[in-house]
């Protein structure tokens, strides 16, 4: 699947993974991820375009109240997000392990290289 997984996209996927079955609103996602609308919505559009997110208009609970647009993972989106969350967690662990290993070694001598 051709989808650029930027840090911001990973943040959005992460926000969706919390209570993945529930519908989420754009502004709530913006608050949770700290992303501005100009960054968040292109990501949501891309995810929806790749059929990883499904979108729906909320049925108005009270008369006169405007409906809101809601977003939720499709089954494929949930699989994709879980796979990438695992891959990224493994990547982060590798980075930590590498850092710990290099901490224990003497600093390389620039004259030798």
């Amino acid at each position, binding site marked *: 699947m051709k989808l650029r997984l930027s840090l911001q996209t990973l943040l959005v996927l992460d926000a969706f993974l919390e209570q993945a079955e529930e519908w989420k609103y754009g502004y709530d996602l913006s608050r949770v991820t700290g992303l501005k*609308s100009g960054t968040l919505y*292109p990501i949501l559009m891309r995810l929806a375009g790749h059929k990883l997110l499904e979108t729906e208009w909320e049925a108005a609970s009270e008369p006169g109240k405007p409906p809101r647009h809601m977003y939720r993972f499709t089954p494929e989106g949930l699989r994709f997000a879980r796979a990438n969350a695992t891959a990224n967690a493994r990547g982060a662990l590798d980075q930590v392990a590498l850092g710990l290993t290099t901490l224990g070694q003497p600093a390389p001598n620039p004259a030798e290289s």
Partner: protein
Amino acid sequence: MGGPRKFAGALLRAVLRIAPAESRDWARAMLREMDFIEGEWAVLFWALGSTTSILRHAASGWRRWFRSKSNQEAGMNSTGRKALGVGLGMLSALALAGCAFAVLRIAGTVFPELRHSSWEYWLGVLIVPEIVFVIAIVMLWRKRGPVAAGILATGLVMALHVAVHLTLHW
């Protein structure tokens, strides 16, 4: 309701009106979210970001349309390809002329003293578009001959129109 919120609402409603069909649902979604944002400036920044998102989404739709047109062009025979090129050239020329005219209109609004001068009129309807056409024709003639021919045809029609106008009114 304060000024920034009013402006933000007006901006997103304007975006909703001009957005292409495939972006309209997203624009409406961003507009609805504004009711749940506290703070005047936060709403304004939300609207500005949303406008950028919609314009980018619309631009990607146009890019897809152009790509599909060029794919169609690749599958056509020689005559069809040339006809499409001429058509695209004419459309581009009209769009360029429209843009030049709009820029001069805006300049007339910003500097009202220019509005009734005759040179602004000639600049808008003849000089600027024709200069742009000549540059475009020279640049495209070898690589995209049919497109250049389309621009040339539009330029000639515009010049002819001006000549007829001058003959009748002077």
